[in-house]
């Protein structure tokens, strides 16, 4: 499988969350993911992009950059915003921690559960970068890391 990438940029409008899901699903189809794995990827991306829309840019739309790439059978997804930022990432990762009373604080939990790897970098008032990786479970033996569950 040749290495491939896709870089996207779009405004943080709610309707672009579904678009991001569709793009990532189409791109991920280049690897041999099962349908269930593609579903997991769609959820993880939906959470990451929704967070940009809701938390990074609560007042008006800002720029979201989504970078997808495939190297050695591993799908990498980077979601970057230039918004509000997260003060305490470890706290944000706790289930049920949310700065929004209407929300469940499950987004980061889903990203962590559904992907093999999750890394978050954030600087308050400058923005947040989320990097997630996943490889097809079938090809597990060949890849450089095992499933974190």
């Amino acid at each position: 499988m040749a290495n491939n990438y896709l870089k996207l940029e779009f405004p943080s409008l709610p309707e672009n969350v579904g678009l991001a899901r569709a793009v990532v699903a189409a791109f991920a189809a280049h690897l041999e993911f099962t349908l269930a794995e593609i579903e997991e990827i769609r959820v993880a991306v939906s959470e990451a992009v929704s967070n940009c829309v809701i938390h990074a840019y609560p007042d008006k739309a800002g720029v979201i950059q989504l970078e997808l790439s495939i190297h050695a059978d591993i799908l990498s997804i980077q979601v970057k915003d230039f918004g509000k930022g997260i003060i305490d990432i470890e706290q944000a990762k706790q289930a049920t921690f949310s700065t929004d009373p209407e929300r469940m604080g499950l987004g980061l939990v889903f990203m962590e559960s559904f992907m093999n790897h999750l890394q978050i970098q954030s600087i308050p008032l400058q923005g947040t970068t989320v990097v997630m990786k996943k490889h097809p479970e079938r090809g597990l033996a060949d890849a450089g890391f095992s499933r974190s569950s």
Partner: protein
Amino acid sequence: MLIQTERVGANLIVTVEGELDLVTSPTFREVVDGKLNHYDAIKHLILDLKKVEFIDSSGLGVILGRFRRLNQLGGKISAIHVSDQIKRVLQLSGLLKVIEIYDDRHGALENSWR
């Protein structure tokens, strides 16, 4: 997303079609809360998830919100036609502890009479 509701006794059956996410969850909340406000008789919610193509934490959040509301009045929520994928996110979210799963409308209604 398409959403349809039907009242059967003390139950509101809500059939959702499409994607339940950030964009569509507010509509789900408005439609269901509208019915709950209108019909005092409704105690239980039965969610028909057969045609739900996608659900993430935004969708689960509005379901939890409806559970909290009904639970205060002694009501409950059940879900029918639940795919493995959706069962998975319900479980991870903890919602599976409070939502009862049945195969179909018949099973859910039978249980709500108890």
